[in-house]
């Protein structure tokens, strides 16, 4: 009886295991089709390094590309550069509005 059960169950394992393997393969092929994402950090600054007038802002931007990771990175850096320049303007306006009460 035991032998009969073994003969029946063994082929069934193959039947269940195979579809699982196929699903894994599908996921992997789907992953490689996703557009690559890249992030880039840029900073803008004014003032003197090490002194209390030094003003620096860093901005990180991310981008995707249908072409390549390098293209996504270049796009992210263009975005980060523009954002950093704008961020420094905002920083200067923010520090310019500071009033110290006594």
């Amino acid at each position, binding site marked *: 009886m035991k032998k009969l059960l073994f003969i029946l169950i063994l082929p069934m394992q193959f039947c269940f295991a195979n579809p699982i393997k196929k699903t894994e393969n599908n996921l992997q092929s789907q992953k490689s089709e996703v557009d690559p994402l890249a992030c*880039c*950090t840029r900073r803008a*600054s004014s*003032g*003197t*390094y*090490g*002194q*209390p*007038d*030094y*003003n*620096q*802002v*860093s*901005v*990180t*931007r*991310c981008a995707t590309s249908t072409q390549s990771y390098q293209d996504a990175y270049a796009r992210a850096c263009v975005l980060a550069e523009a*954002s950093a320049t*704008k*961020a420094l303007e*905002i*920083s200067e306006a*923010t*520090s*310019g509005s*500071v*009033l*110290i009460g*006594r």
Partner: protein
Amino acid sequence: MKRFFLLVFLFSFTAFSQNYLVDYKFSIVDNKDEYGIIGFSITRLITNKTESLTLSKNIDTTAIINGKDEPHIQEASPFAVSQYKNFIDGKRFSRTLFPKYNLKDENYTIPWKIEKSFKTILGYNCQKATGSYRGRDYICYFTEDIPIQSGPHTFDGLPGLVLEVMSLDKAIVFKAITIEETNEKIYNPFDQDKKEYISWEEFVVAYKGYFEKMSNYKPEEDIEFVVPNRSIEVYFTK
């Protein structure tokens, strides 16, 4: 005899008012998190026994720091005044990033411990000293061959001119590269600004407020602004 005394007087006056011009290579490479600063400049110290004037200029740099993919790139700038110190009343003055205010720092004195260790810098015999200053520990070397209690930034108050400073975390380095006598004038350029002076403590409180405003500012969903929380001094820990 009168002529002799006159000559002695004139000589002592000249010796007392002898000005030195020292150029230091300055680097701040503090990248242990995103709130630090990276920068390279030349710090020019014009000093005598009673006061000093500092000018700074950024130097053209492209540097790969700690093997990171993105290099640090900065452009050169001309010399601009950055600090004035008066050793008689122990005050230092500078601009701040708050355009309405300049800094008058009266509590920057570093309690140095002089050690029995020596090395030669630019031909001068230098002695080691150690001390802590606003969040970092430092080693510095001073020379009694130039008996002026001066040095770059706030690193002064030793029996001779400070020629080298390094923080133990290696983030801050000043290294003298030239020393010469000079006739350059020393003055407080910040008095001309006609701005209100703030203390160091007031500066730090204001900076913290500015830091929080900038950190909370979100012009778009996926943009975050990061501003430093420290410079040579650690303003506060996040």
